[in-house]
């Protein structure tokens, strides 16, 4: 029998959590796709935003050490979650400059998981929108 006092109470979501457990829920293993020994940080200009399932992808043009422009694809979260948080393609305008920290694909291609992403002016790109109140159980 469910508790009558606490069951069905709905808490607003809250600050970060279960980071250790959450990857097991991910659609696929990120550690299988990306290499923990290949961390990298890029600065690039957004050329494409794909809010597609199972994961979103942002494509950016990055200038390498020789000044040559190369394209990188950056993997992000589930579009369903992002939509619900009010994120649309307009949230990441084409042409905006991003700074991306993450890990490169194991196959050495120009793909990476975007561990942390911020705009060039330092504003964090909180893809999930504003963080909700940490009010776990309003009992």
């Amino acid at each position: 029998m469910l508790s009558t006092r606490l069951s069905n109470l709905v808490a607003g979501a809250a600050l970060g959590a279960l980071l250790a457990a959450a990857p097991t829920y991910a659609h696929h293993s990120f550690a299988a796709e990306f290499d923990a020994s290949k961390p990298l940080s890029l600065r690039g200009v957004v050329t494409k935003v794909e809010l597609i399932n199972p994961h979103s992808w942002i494509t950016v043009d990055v200038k390498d050490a020789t000044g040559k422009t190369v394209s990188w694809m950056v993997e992000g979260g589930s579009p369903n979650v992002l939509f619900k948080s009010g994120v649309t393609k307009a949230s990441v305008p084409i042409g905006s400059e991003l700074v991306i920290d993450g890990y490169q694909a194991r196959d050495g291609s120009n793909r990476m998981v975007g561990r942390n992403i911020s705009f060039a002016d330092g504003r964090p790109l909180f893809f999930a929108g504003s963080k909700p109140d940490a009010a776990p159980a309003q009992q």
Partner: protein
Amino acid sequence: MDIFARKAFRRRCIEAPRGTHGACHGRPLARACAAAALLCLLAATGAAAAERAKLPRTSDGQPDLQGYWTNNTVVPLQRPAAYAGRAELSEDEARARVAKALEPTEAEAGTDADVHYQLTDYGLDITQRKLNIDRRTALITDPPDGRLPAPRPEAAAQAKERADFARAHAFDGPETRPLGERCLVWPHQGPPIMPTGYNSNLEIRQAPGFVVIITEMLPDPRVVPLDNRPHIPSGVKQWLGDSRGRWDGDTLVIETTNYSGRTQVPGTPQGLLLTPAARVVERIDRTGPDTLRYRFTVEDPNLWDRPWSAEYPLTRIDGMRFEYACQEGNYGMTNTLSGARVADRAAADKGAAR
């Protein structure tokens, strides 16, 4: 005897001292008490009927279960050993459990655990959405210890064999990748439907003679006929089984059979796949304007010597439900396998160099 006379008679009989018939004049006391009990029953039935009358209903009279619902929870399927013998936490403990779930934890840079987008920012951690909170220590309601029954020895051995094979051949090709990664079926779709880490939502729609349940991940509509038609032939297996529904009073009861033998209930031991002999019964009823109760019982004589049951609340959320079109951009499969091939080549080169 008119109604008032009958009431007076009944009152006299009930109030008569034990062992006497008092004003009952030889009528058995038991009969009077039975009549009183009947009155109470009628009153209770009347109250229940009034409650039922308040239930929202569809135009054809079914209890209305429609809408968008979440089953997001921090309550585990099985009762942790630390709570053995305790079905519920105190309110303080329940608060602490949620608070602990909300604690940010960071993985160490350069480790596999850190190879992930920032889960809070991307809205993928369990606390980012509406969270059903209850004090229970397990979703399992039966067995009473809140734990899964032990699998039958031969089933456990087969499960281990499958798990070992899955580990050894994890990156051989798409066929050995998990079903969810292949976008074929998400384990939490069930039946039974289980909470999952993100997008832990479902939609229920009703039409005369049918109920349709769509989990957000993956969004295969499960169309449940309510017209007593028989199950499909036993030789036909389906990812989500074959569901048939009926109303038991105001509770929707769904029985599912015809499992494929390739899916399992999340939280059960890895490789313990439901067999075609499995039968799952779900029960869904309304507990409030914005809440439903979801109960289920799993029986599979090939896996367990006894059935087991669990329960959790569903809480209304705002729609719409975005289609989780898993296949449309499943670049992860390519990246994973191409990464594995690079690793294979590196291992081969290393071997050749020796």
